């Protein structure tokens, strides 16, 4: 019994003709002015130009170096008068080793990460939030701190072997320890990726399969996995390339065994630029191929969905098997990832003032930090450097990332835009040392000669590295928001910039914040590329590498904990903002 609607009274405010539109205020007027096409074009051009300088330039200059100094490369790599093709053999060895480690680490991650991702998305239980945070935790640990932590846990007599009273570490630095490190380091990436996929995939398909009588394992194999296939492949390739390119943690746990990115650093340090360029190019090419593969083919790969074997699959779906699978996934996570990754913290606490075994003050954190070589001062100077670099690079990224995200979503440029879209991700998967070296060639004394190794070159490298971390979340949010909202604002009379400020920007806020925080932590922890371009400047991750090399473990441990603390606080902020959005 609603009251019937009555017509508005004839003399309503809505029909008055004598209300004049007011003059626009300054802000609105400016926005209207700058909404003109020519400004938009200028902004687009500026953004693209910046991007070209940032990423394409270095890549081109890398390839250029390889081509122009091919003769030199040929001699030194394949045909050295003294060593012959030893260098090529070394490259082969280190590349092979890198691939092997990346493949094994990714494989292990997949096996122990799948159940975890499933637990985190398909079960409800107490402490789920905590577990979720714990899984992400290693991501908050910057790679060199992570490497150090794993070295302590597995490789030194202060870790797990200490529990068994052994004199030496369980694993000496080398390929196996590198693999362990890479497992711990890529684990959160894999689980996170898988989690997103499982979350996005409607649980209802699985429900449907269950009501049709399929036991749990069959449901996973025939329904979940085929739908999640693209995501699983994408996550795997990402983890693989990250492992392939990892430098910071690897340097610490590698001992005398070099990986490909480490060899780039070594070649650069010995001023053999042509060879360094050659190896960098190979590494970047591999990543690019992986990226292309990801974009083009992952959709077309079929999953073998052969006939169902009811007996076996039913057996695999029983409660005991399920419980066993979940607990193994959980235990492996704790032993292989969580404890090793966080081991520095108890270590630093234990070794803070006195040696827990002898009671002396030798090799303790305090002694090491306040030794005559003034590590304490170094630590705070480099903390200042790290914070400044992270802050400035994040700012620059945001400045150009916002318009870039808008371009990638809104402009209709066809193929050209697709290319741009793909190139954004290059820093995400290209080995950092190789990328850093490319940027050194481009900006440094042998290229444009704008920046010398040091503060500003580090910033340039970090900007390139963090760019995708800022752009991607913003794009994701823009794509999710309803474009009709903006259309509505435009039909109500708002200029395009006013629409952007009042409608688009507020929606993007969580994405922007998330991106900024990601970028900040990434920059704080970056090691591989920073080493290549740092010159005499030190960031905290570099200090850790230095101190591990000089065997000042206690000081390195303290620096790691400091870095972890910073990153962890930032990660918490990230979670808070995500929850609010």
């Amino acid at each position: 019994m609603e009251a019937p609607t009555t017509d508005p009274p004839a003399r309503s405010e809505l029909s008055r003709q004598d209300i004049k539109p007011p003059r626009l205020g300054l802000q609105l007027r400016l926005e209207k002015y700058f909404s003109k096409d020519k400004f938009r074009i200028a902004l687009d051009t500026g953004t693209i130009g910046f991007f070209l300088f940032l990423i394409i330039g270095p890549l081109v200059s890398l390839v250029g170096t390889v081509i122009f100094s091919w003769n030199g490369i040929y001699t030194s790599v394949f045909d050295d008068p003294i060593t012959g093709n030893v260098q090529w053999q070394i490259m082969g060895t280190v590349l092979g080793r890198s691939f092997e480690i990346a493949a094994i680490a990714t494989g292990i991650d997949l096996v122990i990460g799948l159940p975890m991702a499933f637990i985190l998305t398909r079960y409800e239980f107490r402490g789920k939030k905590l577990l979720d945070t714990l899984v992400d935790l290693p991501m908050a640990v910057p790679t060199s701190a992570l490497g150090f932590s794993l070295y302590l846990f597995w490789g030194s007599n202060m870790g797990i072997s200490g529990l068994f009273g052994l004199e030496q570490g369980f694993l000496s630095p080398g390929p196996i320890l590198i693999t362990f490190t890479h497992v711990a380091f890529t684990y959160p990436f894999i689980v996170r990726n898988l989690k997103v996929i499982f979350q996005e995939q409607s649980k209802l398909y699985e429900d449907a399969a269950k009501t049709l009588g399929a036991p749990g394992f069959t449901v996973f194999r025939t329904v979940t996995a085929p739908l999640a296939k693209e995501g699983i492949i994408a996550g795997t390739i990402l983890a693989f390339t990250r492992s392939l390119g990892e430098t910071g943690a690897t340097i610490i746990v590698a001992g005398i065994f070099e990986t490909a990115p480490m060899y780039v650093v070594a070649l650069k340090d010995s001023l053999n630029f042509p060879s360094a360029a050659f190896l960098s190019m190979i590494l970047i090419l591999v990543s690019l191929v992986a990226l292309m593969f990801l974009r083009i083919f992952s959709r077309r790969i079929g999953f073998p969905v052969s006939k169902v074997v009811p007996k076996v699959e039913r057996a695999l779906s029983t409660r005991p098997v399920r419980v066993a699978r979940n607990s193994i996934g959980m235990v492996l996570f704790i032993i292989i990832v969580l404890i090793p990754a966080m081991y520095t913290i108890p270590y630093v606490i234990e070794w803070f003032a006195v040696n827990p075994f002898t009671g002396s003050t030798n090799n303790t954190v305090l002694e090491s930090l306040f030794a005559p070589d003034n590590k304490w001062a170094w630590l705070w100077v480099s903390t200042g450097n790290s914070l400044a670099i992270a802050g400035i690079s994040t700012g620059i990224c945001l400045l150009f990332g916002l318009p870039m995200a808008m371009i990638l979503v809104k402009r209709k440029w066809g193929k050209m835009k697709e290319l741009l879209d793909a190139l954004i991700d290059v820093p995400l998967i290209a080995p950092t040392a190789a990328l850093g070296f490319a940027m050194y060639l481009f900006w440094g004394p042998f290229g444009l000669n704008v920046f010398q190794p040091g503060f500003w070159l580090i910033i340039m490298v970090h900007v390139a590295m963090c760019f995708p971390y800022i752009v991607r979340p913003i794009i994701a949010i823009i794509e999710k928001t309803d474009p009709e909202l903006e259309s509505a604002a435009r039909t109500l009379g708002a200029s395009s910039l006013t629409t952007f400020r009042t409608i688009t920007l507020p929606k993007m806020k969580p994405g922007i914040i998330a991106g900024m925080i990601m970028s900040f932590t990434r920059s704080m922890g970056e090691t591989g590329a920073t080493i290549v371009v740092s010159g005499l400047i030190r960031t905290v991750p570099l200090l850790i590498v230095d101190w591990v090399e000089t065997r000042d473990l206690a000081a390195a441990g303290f620096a790691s904990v400091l870095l972890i603390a910073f990153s962890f606080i930032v990660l918490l902020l990230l979670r808070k903002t995500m929850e609010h959005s």
Partner: protein
Amino acid sequence: MPKIELLHVSKTFDEGKVVANDDVTLSIEDGAFVFLLGPSGCGKTTLLKLISGLETPTSGTILVGGIDLSKLNPEERSIGFVFQHFEIFPAMTVFENVAYGLVVRGYDDETIEKIAEEALRLVSLEGRMLAYPKELSTPELQKVGLARAIATRSKILFLDEPLGKLDPKIRKVFRHELRRLIKSLGLTAIQVTHDQEEAMAIGDQIIVMRQGKILQHGKPEDLYYRPGSIFVANFFGETNFLEGFVSGVGPDSCVFHLHLGGPKFEIKLQHGHQLKNHVQAIIGYRIEDVELIQTKQEEREPGEELDLEEKPRLNTVKGRVREAIFIGPMKRFIIDLENGDEIQAKHSSKFLIDIREGDEILVGFHENPMVFEYPKDIRAELSKA
């Protein structure tokens, strides 16, 4: 065999913050086609998921055919489920979708083919066997969902708003096909819908839920003519609710005062009613049950007298027609009663053609209205949520 019984079943989410089902006790006979209705978010889907094992009850017992289901996984319960958004597996063909339930049970190819093809024939989709879901229209997807569920030959079938996405015309045809199919297979079925008319047209029984509780469970006619609450009365059909108070309450009748000193209705009460004397009450009349009587002399046939004695049990109130709205076969009237209340009436357009906007008329109310005690929160009762 598959009688469904729920005993004190509750389900909460988010550590008790969201109560989806609240102490539901319910019994559904073998072979019944039951409709589940209620406002959005009242827990209909959750209830079906609890019975089929897709969610676990926080407390309470669920029995099917006398067997406690709590130890059984969903795949062991053999309850067919047609989902709200169909959930047709996108990577499989129509045939593979329909065969899925048989494949996972390990039937041999020949049997699978026979049964799946028959299921597809029943929903007349045999021509689309090799199509992929993305090539299908919404009604076709809906049919695949149905065929896939019945191909497992479960004796119980749940349908969560299966017709929700179809357009109204197709929907009206399809609902009868659906009923025929379910009856011919001898299934016990529960269907969720938001369409009251659909529920009344093809359901054997209707369950009305609200805020996780069951308000009423009964035959469509019972719910329509003997609603247990204002909410249910308002939920089905269109009803005029009149506020007033009662006096002279006897075992089977009372006097209803529209206002102190205003119009009085003599009305019948059902035996065993709970109404007290001299309290506020609400009575309800379906809008098609409100009679309109022309009082203007010249509009009556010559010789015909205005004879209210002919309709002895009709309570009348004077009113004035505010709006007369033509809606095809019917005409809807909005009438201001002399006491200030507004009521609506709906009648066949052919009769009452002469009642126009502005006419003074008599409005007749029969003696068997729905009678309710005055509720604590009248607004909540009259909202549809």
